[in-house]
C-alpha cells in the first residue's frame, strides 16, 4: 500500500552522523543516502573514515551522534575490505558461499554466472587469484538478492585491467538488478563513469555531487591534488598517453576529466 512512498525512500540514509572511538572523532557531520538503482561512491584519503562510515551505514556500529537508518526489510549485500581467510581453515569457494545462509534455489547458479566464478567453485579459497577472490566476495553479497550492495574497496589486490572489468561488472549488476550500490574506492578515475553520486570525506564531509562537480570542487582538488596527480600519472602511463598530467579540470568527457 505504501509502495509508492517506499520506492522513493532511500535504502540507506545517514544524516549528521558522527562516530567516535574513545575521544577520537573518526567521522563527523556526514550526510549520505543511497536510493534504488543509484551508485554512490565514497572517496577520501587513507584514514578519512570511509570504512567507519560504511560500518555505520550497515548498522555494525552505532553513531555517537546523528542518525543511520535503513529502509524496513531492505536486504543488504556486504563485501568487506581485506577479508583474508586464515590458512588454518580449509574452505572451498562453494562452502564460503554457503556461509551466506539459506538462499533461494537457483540463486547460486545465477550468481555464479553473473560473476563468472563457476569454474573455481570447488577450489580452496587460498588457491584462487586476487581478482577471483573479489568476485567470490561479490557473489556472496549477491546471493542475498540485495536491495543494496555495500562494497568496501571492491578492486583491492586486483590488477589494473581486472579493476576496470570489476567496476564494469558492478555497473552491469546495478543495471540488471536495479539495486543501489554504496562503494568505497580510492580511484575516482576508474569508477567515475559508473558512478551517479560521489561523496568525498576526510573525517568531515568535504564535498558531494556528481563525479563531474566533485572533481571540480576546490576542496577535492586541494585534498587529492597531489595524490591524484600521482595515480593519474600512473594511469595515463599505462592506458592513455594522449592526455598528460596537467592538473586541468576542464575536460568534459570520459574518465580523465580531472587529470
Amino acid at each position, binding site marked *: 500500500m505504501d509502495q509508492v512512498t517506499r520506492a522513493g525512500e532511500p535504502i540507506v540514509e545517514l544524516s549528521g552522523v558522527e562516530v567516535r572511538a574513545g575521544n577520537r572523532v573518526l567521522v563527523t557531520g556526514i550526510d549520505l543516502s543511497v536510493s534504488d538503482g543509484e551508485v554512490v561512491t565514497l572517496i577520501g584519503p587513507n584514514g578519512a573514515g570511509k570504512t567507519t562510515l560504511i560500518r555505520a551505514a550497515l548498522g*555494525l556500529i552505532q553513531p555517537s551522534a546523528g542518525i543511520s537508518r535503513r529502509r524496513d526489510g531492505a536486504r543488504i549485500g556486504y563485501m568487506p575490505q581485506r*577479508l583474508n581467510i*586464515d590458512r*588454518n581453515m*580449509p574452505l*572451498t569457494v562453494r*562452502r564460503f558461499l554457503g556461509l551466506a*545462509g539459506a538462499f533461494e534455489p537457483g540463486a547460486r547458479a545465477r550468481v555464479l554466472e553473473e560473476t563468472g566464478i563457476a569454474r573455481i567453485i570447488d577450489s580452496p579459497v587460498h588457491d584462487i587469484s586476487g581478482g577471483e577472490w573479489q568476485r567470490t566476495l561479490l557473489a556472496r553479497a549477491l546471493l*542475498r538478492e540485495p536491495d543494496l550492495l555495500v562494497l568496501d574497496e571492491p578492486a583491492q589486490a586486483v590488477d589494473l585491467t581486472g579493476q576496470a572489468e570489476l567496476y564494469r561488472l558492478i555497473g552491469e549488476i546495478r543495471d540488471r538488478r536495479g539495486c543501489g550500490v554504496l562503494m568505497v574506492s580510492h580511484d575516482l578515475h576508474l569508477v567515475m563513469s559508473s558512478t551517479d553520486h560521489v561523496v568525498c570525506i576526510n573525517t568531515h564531509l568535504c564535498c558531494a555531487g556528481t563525479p563531474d562537480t566533485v572533481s571540480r570542487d576546490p576542496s577535492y582538488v586541494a585534498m587529492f591534488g597531489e595524490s591524484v596527480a600521482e595515480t593519474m600519472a600512473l594511469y595515463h602511463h599505462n592506458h592513455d598517453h594522449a592526455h598528460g598530467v596537467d592538473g586541468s579540470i576542464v575536460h568534459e568527457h570520459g574518465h580523465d576529466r580531472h587529470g
Partner: protein
Amino acid sequence: MRMALTAASCMNTDTIVMDDFLVRAVLAGVGVAAVTGPLGSFVVWRRMSFFGDALAHSALLGVALGLLLGIDLTVGVLAVAVIAAILLLGIERRTGLAMDTILGILSHGTLAIGLVAVAFLERVRFDLLGFLFGDILAVTAADIAWIYGGGAVALALIAYFWRPLLSATVHADLARAEGVPVDRVNLVFLLCLALVVATAMKVVGILLVAAMLIIPAATARPYSRTPERMAVFAVVISWLSVAGGLGLSFAADTPGGPSIISFGLLLFALTTGLMALRQRHSDG
C-alpha cells in the same frame, strides 16, 4: 589345590579391577576426544590456542575454589573458566593491550594464584600433579558422567550453531551484516570451550588441555578440504592418540595424559614429515 584356587580367583579379580579402570580410562579418553576435535578446530581457526591455554590455567583456581567451598570440583572449574572467558573478552575490548599480552598475563597469573590458593588447603588430601597433568587411570564413574554429559551438551551446541559459528569465525562483520548474532554465537563457543576445559582436565591435565585441542586439529588440517572434514579427522586423530597414549601408559607405566599428548605429537610429526616429503617428491 586350595591355594591354587585362591591364587586363580585372586588373579581373576585382579584382571577385573585392571579391566575396570582401563575401560574407564578408554571411555574418558574417547569421550573427551570426541569434543576436543571440533572445538580444537575452531580454536585453531580462530587463532585462540593461547586463549584455550589461559582458560585451562585458570582451572586450578577453580579446583581451589571447589575444595574451599566444598562443591563439586568440576563445577568450580567450570565456573572459574566461564568467568575467565568473559573477563578475557571484556578486557580485550577495553584495553589497548595486544591480546597475546593479556593472555600471557592472565594465563600465568591465574596459574600462579591457583598454586598459591591450593597451598592454603594443606589439610585437604590433594593430588596437585594429578590436576596439572591429568590422571586418566584414576577417573571415576562420576567423571565419566561429566565427560559424556558435558561433551554431549557442547557437541549439540556446536552442531546447532555450526554455520553461524563458521561464518563468525571467517569474518565477524560480514556475518553480522548477514544477520548472524555474532556476540551470542561467540559466547556459546566460549561456554563450550570452558565446558571442555573442565572435563578434559581429568584426562590430560590443566597444563596439557590446550595441546589436546590444538595438536589433533593441526594434524588434520593438511588432509582436509572442508571445515567439517577437519573436525571429523581431528576426532579420529585424537582417538588414535588416546589409544596409543593409553597403550604406552599401560605397558610402560608412564603418566596417561602426557603419553596421549606425546603420541599425538608423534602423529603430527609423522604426517607433517610425510607431507613435506610428498611435496618435495612432486616438486622434484
